[in-house]
Structure formats: structure tokens, C-alpha cells
């Protein structure tokens, strides 16, 4: 397997960023991590994952869709779309890598979302296998192997070197572009590291969680469950869970009047917000219970119903650590579980 020594990581990043934009998880001063555009001297974060997920790269929180110019009774439509430039996201975890295939199912379904598609085509996802999963991790529940992440190319660290493997042409192209820095390496120690990680994954506190009670065919049963009242009673109705979630993809389209034109933009929206379904003549989801239910039903029932049983959650654990009142999908799954 091709590898690069960890102390040559700077050289690697320099080489990648010389030809295209590179994003890596970097540490913030408060100890958390975020994706940043690579600049010389920047260090790869050792944190398990970033606070914000990697979905931003393909589905940014706000983006301009189209501009309008209004003159008298006339409207001019200005297509402001640009071809995206090539970029690399390095160090994506297995959970986030899977979230892209989930987002693909939404945005690349007919009619294709061209804004998403162009970024997806131009972005190379280089994943990094986990070595120190956290107590909040439960990706295994959704069939994700944290020691064998998806993505265009994957890499593994054995504590001394990083090993590379391509999963498709785009990944191969990426590895070819840095091949002068790589050398063939022995994977014995890597196998050992992976084995250790697998052992940890098995004894994670949430490893025993089951998805058996959920899926597209359980719609009415779960929708009408009496548990929702108790589960949602302390929900604040904020958007934290949806905004840190790598798979939440609901959006709003709004117009902004700049004073010299109209910008129509799209921004993330949250089904937890009270105005999400509000119409001129009323709102079908009036209480937080209904809005709370929508979010979890979508991930555990509606999404699988429309996507051959695939769930809309990747078990990254962000909502577990970030919800202000610590109510999350794991607690919902445990409460709704049919024994």
C-alpha cells in the first residue's frame, strides 16, 4: 500500500494545495475542530470530528441561486451559476462520507440540482479511518465501518504513516497527483491499529442499538406512537440538531432585496422551526411535538421508505453532543424500539 510518513504531512498538503484548494479539519482554540482552507503551516486536527459536518462543501448553508433585476413591469433573470473549481476535502470521517451518498439521493434525483452537482463533480473526498471513536459514535448501527471509510480515496494512519487507497477514478487521479511523495509501505502495523479500533467499535456504548424497529413499512405505527409527547416535551425548537447534522438537507428559498436588485438565495432550514410549514392560511404542524416527530420520522421512516430502506442517519453523534437539552436520535430510537 502507498504511504507517506506523518512528518511529511506538511509536504503533502503543500503539494495538494499547489494545484487545487484543499480543506482539512483544523483545531480551534477552544479545542473543537472545523474544516479550514489549507494554508502553509496549518496542522491536521487530531479531534475525532468537526463540529459542523462536511456537507457544507456540497450544500453550503447559504448560496445564491439566481439574481433578478426589476424594471417597471419587466423582470430580468440573471443566471449567476459558475462552474465550480476543483477542490479536495481531506480527512473526512466514514460517517460524513456516507452522508454524501445520502445527500446524493436527494439532490441528484431527477430533477438534478445543478448547484449541488457541479460541486460534487469538482470535489474529491479523501476519507480518514477513525482510530479513537467516541462514546457518541454509532455509525456501525447503519452499516458503516469506521475503519474502512468510503469516499473517492481513503487513508489510514498507523501512528507513523498514512496509507492511501483509491476507490474510484477520481480517487486514483488524486493519488497519482501526489504519487511522487508516496512510497510503498508495509501494512502490518496498520492492520494491528485497525484491529484495535474494531475491538473498540464493538464495545462502544451505543453499539447495541438496533434499526430493526424502523423502516418505511412502520409509518403509521411510529407516527401514532404515544411516546412523542414525552420525547419532545423539553425540545427548545432550535435548529442545532439539523444544522450540525450531515444528512439534514431541508432548505428554504428566499429573496433578498439589495436595493439594486433581488438575490434569490437558498439556505438551510430546519423542520424544528415553527415557520417551517407555515402558510398564509395555516400551519399543518402547529406544535413542537409534530415538528420534532417530523425530523425523526424523516430519518428513520420516510427516508427509508423512499430509498430502499436506507436510513437518513449516519451515526456521527453530533446531535448527541450538541443538543442543548440532550435529546437525540438515539433516545428516540430506544424509546420507539419495538421489543
Amino acid at each position, binding site marked *: 500500500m502507498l504511504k507517506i510518513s506523518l512528518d511529511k504531512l506538511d509536504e503533502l498538503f503543500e503539494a495538494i494545495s499547489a494545484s487545487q484548494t484543499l480543506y482539512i479539519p483544523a483545531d480551534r482554540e477552544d479545542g473543537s475542530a472545523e474544516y479550514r482552507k489549507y494554508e502553509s503551516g496549518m496542522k491536521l486536527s487530531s479531534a475525532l470530528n468537526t463540529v459542523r459536518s462536511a456537507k457544507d462543501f456540497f450544500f453550503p448553508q447559504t448560496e445564491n*441561486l439566481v439574481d433578478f433585476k426589476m424594471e417597471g413591469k419587466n423582470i430580468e433573470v440573471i443566471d449567476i451559476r459558475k462552474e465550480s473549481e476543483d477542490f479536495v476535502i481531506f480527512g473526512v470521517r466514514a460517517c460524513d462520507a456516507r452522508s454524501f451518498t445520502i445527500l446524493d439521493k436527494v439532490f441528484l434525483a431527477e430533477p438534478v440540482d*445543478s448547484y449541488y452537482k457541479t460541486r460534487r463533480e469538482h470535489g474529491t473526498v479523501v476519507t480518514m479511518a477513525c482510530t479513537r471513536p467516541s462514546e457518541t459514535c454509532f455509525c456501525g448501527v447503519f452499516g458503516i465501518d469506521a475503519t474502512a471509510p468510503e469516499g473517492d480515496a481513503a487513508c489510514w494512519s498507523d501512528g507513523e504513516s498514512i496509507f492511501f487507497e483509491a476507490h474510484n477514478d477520481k480517487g486514483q487521479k488524486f493519488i497519482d497527483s501526489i504519487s511522487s511523495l508516496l512510497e510503498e509501505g508495509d501494512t502490518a502495523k496498520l492492520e494491528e491499529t485497525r484491529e484495535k479500533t474494531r475491538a473498540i467499535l464493538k464495545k462502544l456504548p451505543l453499539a447495541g442499538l438496533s434499526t430493526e424497529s424502523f423502516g*418505511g413499512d412502520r*409509518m403509521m405505527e411510529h407516527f401514532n406512537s404515544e411516546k412523542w409527547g414525552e420525547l419532545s416535551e423539553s425540545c427548545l425548537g432550535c435548529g442545532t440538531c439539523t444544522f450540525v447534522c450531515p444528512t439534514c438537507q*431541508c432548505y428554504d428559498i428566499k429573496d433578498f432585496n439589495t436595493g439594486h436588485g433581488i438575490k434569490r438565495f*437558498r439556505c438551510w432550514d430546519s423542520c424544528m422551526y415553527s415557520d417551517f410549514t407555515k402558510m398564509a392560511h395555516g400551519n399543518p404542524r402547529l406544535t413542537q411535538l409534530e415538528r420534532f416527530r417530523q425530523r425523526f420520522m424523516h430519518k428513520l421512516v420516510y427516508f427509508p421508505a423512499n430509498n430502499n430502506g436506507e436510513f437518513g442517519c449516519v451515526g456521527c453523534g453530533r446531535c448527541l453532543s450538541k443538543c442543548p437539552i440532550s435529546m437525540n436520535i438515539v433516545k428516540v430510537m430506544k424509546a420507539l424500539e419495538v421489543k
Partner: protein
Amino acid sequence: MNNDTLIPYIGVVTDIRQDTPDVKTFRVVSPEGGKVFEHMPGQCAMLSIPGVGEGMFSITSSPTNKEFMEFSIKKCGCLTTWLHAMDVGQQITIRGPYGNHFPVETDLKGKDLLFIAGGIGLAPLRSVINYVRDNRSDYGDVQIVYGSRSKDDLVDYKEIIEEWMADDGIEVNLTIDNPQEGWDGHVGFVPNYVKELNPSINKTVLICGPPIMIKFTLAGLKELGFTETQVYTTMELRMKCAVGKCGRCNIGSKYVCKDGPVFRFDQLDELPDEY
């Protein structure tokens, strides 16, 4: 780059007709003349005034009309108020067509049809009614039951009287909620009127109107012996993208904008009651 469905076309409003005190019908063509796009009866389009808002409206004209599209719009919120205030010649943005349509080429073909509408609920059905009138030989008897608050609130009253009632094989039954001077027709609510009319139960029903009317009419139809597989309706929820991605117009796993707006009642029965 291909055109993205979120980037709208321009439409020009060439005619505005005041139908009722709070409903206007707008005629829209492309700036080059002709229709902006083709559609099927029951499908919708997203109309917008940039800076004001965008909303989903059902296309009320029949696809058989090759010159223009029409939208009957009730003054209700921010966008519709703006639309009501505009003049002929105004450009708007339009994208579509969205959603499914009434199965005029399959399930409805050869059937006797019963249309039941209340208030502005006639708008989506008008497209089907005119489609059926223009392809008269493909369908059996047509019966229309239409009710509104008052005579003045009957949308397309002129067209109903002058064209629909004049057609052979079309029976039109109008009703208004309360007695009114100058009205010698039926008075009463739609659900009761339908029961009084006692339509034959081999008809296929297309129903649209306020939720409460739909609820009671459906119950009445069931009493008469209709089954849910015979009854179609069309829904409306808040929409932003209109292509099943923005995630707000769902009823259970179905998106009204993509999987709807036309549903058969047995399909709705399998979905959570959240509309």
C-alpha cells in the same frame, strides 16, 4: 450548463379577470407569445414576484388550450395580494410544471365523472373539466357539483353558465351556502347537496375544496356506497422547491409537490393525518 429547475422563466400577464370579490384569474404567456410550457390537468406551477415571494398554484386552464395558461388565485397572503394589485403587462416568473396530474389518460378514460368543488377548489378541477369537454368522446357522463359562499363567490360563473351548461352530457349543479336575492338555485352546503343528488355509484369522483368540505363530502359519498379508490383529490401544503428536495410539503413519506398534488383517497389513508 443545463438549465436548473430552480431558475424560473419569465411569464407575461396578458389578461386579468376579476372572478369573485377575492379571486382573480390571470392569463400568462411567454414573452415571445404562446405557452411557457405544456402541462397535464392537475399539475401546478411556481409563480413568483422576485422580492415578494414564490408560491405554488394549480394551472386552471386546460392543456388543450394551446395559446396561454390561466391561474385562478384567491387573495390570501403576501404574494397573492401583490398579484391581485398588479396590472396587465406585468412580468412574473414562472417555473414548472410540477407534480402529478389527474389520470385523464388512464384511470379516468371511459368513466362517468363526478366533479365536486367548493369555493376556489374549482380552480384545479377546471383544467380537468375543460380537458374532458375538449376530448368529450373519451369520457362518459359528466356531473359537476359546485358550491360557494354566495353567488358572487362562484368562480368562473360566466363560463359555467355559458359553456359548461350548454354542453350536452354535462350536468351542472350549483349551490350557495345561504339564500340570496337573485338566486333561485339550490341553497345548502356541498356535502348535503351531493347526498341529495344521490349520484350513481359507478362514477369516478374528483373533489377539491376546503378540508372540512372534503371531509364531510367523502363521508357522504361513502354512505352512498362509493369506495375510496373511486375518489381523487388534490392537496396543497407549503412548498419552496417544488421538486421534492426542500423537505416541507411531505405527508408522511410522500411529497405533495412531487408525489402529489393528486392523490386517491385510499393512498391518503396509508399516510399520517398531517395535512
